[in-house]
């Protein structure tokens, strides 16, 4: 391997979040919760959230089984969204998280990177009725019912 390629994708910060995930473990009680799967590889992530006044996110807790990218991305996300309102997070573009990750992603690995964000949006939608991403179409209903 050219060390470059490995280091680009698995840069130090990513490996650190993977090996030492922030906000790991599910919250109980929680104000919002959801689970999701990446149908391509079967990876799973569960997210719980505690909300304060004005639906501001105070705490996030997650667990999951998945690759370094999906786990590190969810860990970074959990720090990123604290202090934002549910409504803000519902509209958060995936590009913001991808910027934070700062690594080149192929379409397949992109799905890994945004799995946690999708599950978080789903949790907020179920608890607070915030909108789901339009591109999910009605397939999202399936997720909600689960």
């Amino acid at each position: 391997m050219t060390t470059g390629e490995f280091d680009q994708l698995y840069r130090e910060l990513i490996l650190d979040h993977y090996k030492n995930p922030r906000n790991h473990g599910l919250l109980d009680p929680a104000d919002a919760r959801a689970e999701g799967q990446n149908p391509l590889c079967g990876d799973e992530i569960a997210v719980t959230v505690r909300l304060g006044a004005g639906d501001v996110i105070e705490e996030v807790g997650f667990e999951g089984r998945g690759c370094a990218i999906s786990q590190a991305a969810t860990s970074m996300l959990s720090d990123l969204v604290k202090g934002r309102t549910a409504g803000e997070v519902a509209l958060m573009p995936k590009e913001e998280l991808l910027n934070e990750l700062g690594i080149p992603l192929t379409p397949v690995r992109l799905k890994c990177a945004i799995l946690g964000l999708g599950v978080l949006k789903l949790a907020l939608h179920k608890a607070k009725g915030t909108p789901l991403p339009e591109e999910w179409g009605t397939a999202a209903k399936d997720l909600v019912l689960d």
Partner: protein
Amino acid sequence: MAVTAQPALDAYRVRADFPIFEQTIHGKPLAFLDSAASSQKPRQMLEAMVRFYETSYANVHRGVYELAERATAGLENARERVATLLNAPAAREVVFVRNATEGINLVAYAWGLSNLGPGDVVVATELEHHSNFVPWQYVARRTGADFRVLPLDDSGELRLDALDALVGGGRVKVVAAGIVSNALGTVNPIETLARWAHEHGAIVVADAAQAAPHRTLDVQALGCDFLALSGHKMCGPSGIGVLWGRAELLEAMEPFLTGGHMIRSVGLERTTWGELPHKFEAGTAPMAEAVGLAAAIDYLEAIGFDAIERHEHELTAYALGRLSELPWVTTFGPPLERRAGIVSFDVDGVHPHDVAQVLDFEGVAIRAGHHCCQPLMRRLGVTATNRASFYVYTVREEIDRLVEGLYRVRKAFS
């Protein structure tokens, strides 16, 4: 449409892209006048497929490695390419199937089995290809719905005036109609039909198999709900077709084929379906064929669909003119203004098989038969017709050779 924006099609130059013409048939150059059945293939399309196999092949979607990423990109770029061609609102509305026939069956099964029942009416036209006729007749029989056939007038055009009477008080749920007839070349008023159908709460399933190769299509302007086409008729490979459907409908539908790739999660007790378009693409996709289809669309768009339409229009006018010189030849179908590049005809006292056979000895390939349109054949009072059809590589000389050949036919059988 800016009809003058594109330079005229130079069929001689186009022809040079098609290796099939580099041979003789029965010692004669090939005059291929059967493109409505399937088109010949340009080198550019074949090269795109072979390049894909030689440099970028792997199974798609699930692989993390480089080749799998390339293959997935090939398939998904093809989907985008088709979406643009059809002016579809989103690429996830484009489902790859084997051919137009499978696309229509997908709707008949996945939408029809769950949405049709006794008291519902399904309408197909008397002009339909069997592929947009039998699936509706079949699903109507399975669900107890009524199957009714919209009649034609004597020149082979749809009797839209008969629609209201046809459905009577019934609850019409489906209107199945081709955009261009493969047997007569009739160009149907789909927009009008779609307006009527939507007023009555029905969905419109447009068969574009014979339209997509020859003209600009816009699913939003047509107003249809589903549209099916075949790659092999538009310079693409065999083994691939497209079903386009409105996202809301596709999302609300049951799946059709089930199995690998189309699921979100499979449990012993319960399975949930994946997102569009994957929900409708079970198993390994026709990947190389999709890449070939995209290259074919590139090829056709570089020529320009307006130029193609004009070229075929001129050939059709010429053919109708030349055939009208032969008093023992009868042509079928609508006037030139509402006709695509297809001419169906009868030679007095000679069966189409014999006509086609004698023409083949001259290197001229036409189709003889019922063209998968037996209801239409009955309406015309024949069992078969001769059909000549034109495409981007067709030149006038080939029509002259057809006419010469017909003189020989006449002589041989009189």
